[in-house]
């Protein structure tokens, strides 16, 4: 790289300094126009990129419909501020003219610091008094939550102490050492002893906190009871589902390729998966038909488009025309066809993958048949659980504040969290004095428009019997043998399905 500046100067690369503008036939030397033109040139590619998507006017231009009162209030507020601002100028002008100090701002600020400190500490105390009881401290509904809470109290004790001391010192110094022209500040640069103390002391305290945190964290994440009961928690846009192992106590395998309308969790159950393959084949046939007829439909859309343009309907129905135009453009540019091909390819891949899985007896071991998919979670007090998390589409996070449980649900990466509930819903209702209280699992990772309403109820019951009664009311994935089994598509017209069943048999 040569010396850029020099090079630029020599080669006269600062063309824009001398540039004569000839834009739209108007010759101009105006600096303003030159600047505008340069901005325009730089931004053109981006405008082009976004052109179709940028909304020109969000609503129709109709000043009558505007909320004038709010606008006026806003304008008025701004005006008032500006007037106040000007009046301060006048204040300082009078000070200058009269030569007298009206307000000693240095003292005012020093005092204001003290007032702020006192009011602030009162505010902290008041907030603690009003909302302290809602804080999730000390009434953990899970066993590990209690160690976590004690960790919290240790940290709180330490940090609150430091917080009060340092903030008090800060504002006290602000008051104590306010400017005095008869005084000179102390002249010193450092004090090794003091500095060593305030490096070592926090270091020791933090070592203590780190060690404690380390043991708490390790205990929570690795000390897992081998007899824990597994529950699968499945997050999707926008809701949760749970899966229990059913009578055989074995959770069936699951795979995102098997997900369909009737199999929301994608469990490896033969009949459901086979009918999914059938469904996919049907969709492929439909898409192929659409693709074959693409020329005819282009003609139809073109005729429609021309009709809109020729009759002037394009201006009277702008919304419809816009949609039609984009469809028509997709058709003639081939974007629509490419999209169809992509869809077909994706569906074919899905079928291929499913068939490959169906040959695998470990995946389709029949344990999924009696799995129970539920829309709420019921657990038993004092029994260890391990929640296995899966996500269907994007990252979700299973958050149960009452249990001090949180773990992300990541597509393609199974995660889990082990815990033991120690307080039933009924007990929590009694202590909280709220007969309608329920535990909930929330979503705590931004996942889309309805993120704020993604929850599933958790009920902690006191005894195994209650749990079993509840579980009995839940239907297994495939109805038990007593009931007629779902038809497994014996006369499947697609070869793919035939292959699948042959392998299975």
């Amino acid at each position: 790289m040569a010396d850029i500046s020099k090079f630029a100067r020599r080669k006269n690369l600062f063309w824009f300094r001398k540039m004569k503008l000839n834009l739209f036939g108007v010759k101009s030397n105006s600096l303003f126009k030159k600047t505008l033109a340069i901005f325009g040139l730089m931004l053109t590619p981006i405008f082009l990129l976004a052109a179709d998507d940028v909304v020109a006017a969000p609503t129709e231009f109709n000043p009558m419909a505007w909320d004038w009162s709010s606008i006026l209030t806003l304008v008025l507020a701004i005006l008032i501020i500006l007037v106040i601002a000007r009046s301060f100028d006048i204040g300082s002008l009078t000070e200058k003219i009269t030569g007298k100090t009206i307000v000693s701002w240095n003292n005012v600020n020093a005092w204001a610091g003290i007032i702020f400190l006192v009011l602030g500490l009162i505010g902290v105390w008041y907030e603690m008094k009003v909302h302290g009881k809602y804080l999730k401290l000390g009434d953990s509904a899970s066993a590990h939550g209690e160690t976590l809470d004690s960790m919290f109290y240790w940290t709180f004790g330490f940090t609150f102490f430091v917080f009060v001391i340092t903030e008090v010192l800060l504002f006290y110094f602000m008051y104590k050492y306010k400017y005095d022209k008869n005084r000179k500040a102390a002249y010193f640069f450092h004090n090794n002893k003091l500095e060593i103390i305030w490096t070592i002391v926090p270091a020791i305290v933090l070592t203590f906190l780190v060690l404690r945190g380390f043991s708490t964290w390790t205990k929570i994440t690795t000390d897992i009871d081998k007899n824990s009961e597994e529950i699968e928690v499945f997050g999707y846009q926008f809701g949760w589902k749970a899966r229990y192992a059913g009578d055989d106590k074995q959770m069936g395998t699951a795979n995102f390729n098997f997900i369909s309308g009737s199999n929301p969790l994608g469990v490896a159950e033969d009949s459901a998966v086979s009918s999914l393959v059938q469904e996919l084949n049907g969709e492929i046939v439909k898409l192929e038909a659409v693709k074959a007829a693409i020329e005819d439909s282009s003609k139809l859309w073109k005729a429609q488009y021309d009709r809109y343009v020729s009759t002037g309907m394009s201006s009277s129905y702008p919304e419809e025309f816009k949609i039609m135009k984009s469809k028509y453009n997709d058709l003639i540019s081939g974007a629509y066809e490419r999209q169809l091909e992509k869809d077909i390819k994706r569906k074919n891949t899905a079928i291929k993958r499913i068939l490959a899985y169906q040959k695998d007896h470990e995946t389709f071991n029949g344990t999924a048949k009696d799995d129970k998919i539920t829309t709420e979670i019921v657990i038993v007090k004092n029994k260890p659980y391990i929640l296995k998390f899966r996500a269907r589409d994007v990252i979700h996070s299973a958050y149960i504040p009452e249990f001090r449980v949180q773990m992300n649900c990541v597509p393609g990466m199974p995660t889990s969290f082990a815990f033991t509930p120690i307080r039933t819903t009924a007990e929590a209702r009694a202590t909280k004095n709220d007969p309608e209280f329920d535990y909930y699992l929330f979503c705590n990772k931004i996942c889309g428009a309805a993120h704020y309403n993604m929850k599933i109820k958790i009920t902690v019951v006191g005894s195994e019997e209650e749990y079993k009664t509840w579980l009995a009311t839940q239907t297994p994935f495939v109805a038990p043998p007593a009931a007629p089994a779902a038809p497994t598509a014996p006369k499947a017209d697609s070869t793919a399905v035939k292959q699948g069943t042959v392998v299975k048999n």
Partner: protein
Amino acid sequence: MSTAALHAEHDSHHHDHKESFISKYVFSMDHKMISRQFLITGIIMGIIGMGMSLLFRLQLAWPDEQFGILETLLGKWGKDGKIDPNFYMGLVTIHGTIMVFYVLTAGLSGTFSNLLIPLQVGARDMASPFMNMLSYWFFFMSSVVLLISIFVETGPASAGWTVYPPLSALEKAMPGSGMGMTLWLVAIALFIVSSLLGGINYISTVLNMRTKGMSMNRMPLTIWAFFFTAILGVLSFPVLLGAALFLIFDRSFGTSFYLSDIYLEGVGALENIGGSPVLYQHLFWFLGHPEVYIILMPALGITSEVISTNARKPIFGYTAMVISLMGIAILSFIVWGHHMFITGMNPFLGSVFMILTLIIAVPSAVKAFNYLATLWKGNLRFTPAMLFSIGLVSFFISGGLTGIYLGNAAMDIQLHDSYFVVAHFHLVMGSAAIFGMFAGIYHWFPKMFGRMMNNTLGYFHFWFTFISAYLVFFPMHFMGLAGVPRRYYQFTLLKEFDVWMDVNKLITVAAIIGGIAQLFFLWNFFYSIFKGKKSTQNPWESNTLEWSTPVEHLHGNWPGEIPTVYRGPHEYSRPDRELDYFPQYLPDETAPVTAPQEGEQTAPTEVVPEKTVESSVFFAAIKRVFGLS
């Protein structure tokens, strides 16, 4: 570069000495003008970012209310006077992006690194003024692209400012992941280019263009802070570019860096297999955590300088301050995992990151104590800049302490992504850094524009902002401890959070007051640029080199020779001096001018401030960094 050489060349090219409008105000290569450009762009972006936060605060406080003005302002996104949930996400995302990158990275470090590095180390300009100009214009383009993305039909990027895939990678996952997300990525790519161009420049200027006698240990703490900030940026931003490129590939070219095992409603099972969304998070936070310090360190540097000047007292523990800055800078590269404790990464890795994270508390504590010790027995002048610096220290303490909770993996299980996190980072890096920025603006306004800002308005600005910032963010700790998740559009569907409605209202009212308080500042700032009281050369009676330059700006900064530096920057209230300050550039009356003490004689021969060639300086910097020379 030497003024004489520059002007000679300048004059030979232009018959009149006057620079044209464009070369002076638009494509300027003068670091002072570029810093003003950064500042004003940053302020405009700040207004937009803050306006957005007020919009979503309205939604959180009065979720059932209808505000006609929202429909006027937002059109289809504010139908019936209520913000659309998708647009709410967009607001949250763009607010975060603007504040983190555009205001507190470019607006803060771009402004003050550009203004102060040449002025405080005694250089005519940056090592490469041309790269410096490019840095601003890439930033400008990036801002424009980001602002365009707000007006896209499908809405701006809405996956949170961290834009985690798969949400941000799949167009069908949410409307904002369409064109809005593409523009977001373009904007960030441009921003990274800008940041790198700037950062390389800052580093080479600090290393190579210091004036005679300005050894590294005589640099003001601002320069140290900008120096470490630039190093962090140069090392970490490229990683974000990599992360963004992979995301672009995943979005547009069918790769699977971040995608695996996905079934999308209305689409079906996707083909992508083998990627990992967690990979993105690792790459993102490898930038994201240093980014926090890229934001905070310049503010800390500015505060050190302002507090020392206005306390009329040497900064306490200069060496300790530099070492703790360095410690924070190094540690910031190995703690990114604390943003990911609950992503399902190996728990052992979590404990390693926890230990490293909590170590950062030690240098941070040292800094806070040193600020207090500097105030102790000082003679405090409460200029607005001083007040904002004290405000920063207060925020730095109260926000920093909650970092000890969040850095602890065990407690993070409960607090992750709750309002506690929002409170923590808005205090420690949001409010603290913006206060540092305000302190810098009030303090160096006379240097930037040759005029003074109105102090009284500054006081009102400070107290309103300070109080409202605490009122906004302090109650959020309580909400977080009660398990209220962040980024929720409303809480009315969850009965459990009803008790927080009044707190939400309080926060919104405080935020509106805080927003209105900024009008004091805006008025003061823009009015004073044109009509403010004319500044004297050294209005704060400060020691540092920038106050030896004339009030009227000059290309090349000093009319004559660049002054020589004789001592450290913090010689305030020296007992043997009558005045309570002793500028760096004044020779010691007792000692002969030509013989500085303590081996400083090596500095002039090493530095060669008369050098005219920019790129050779740049290469010398690189050589020096890698120990080649």
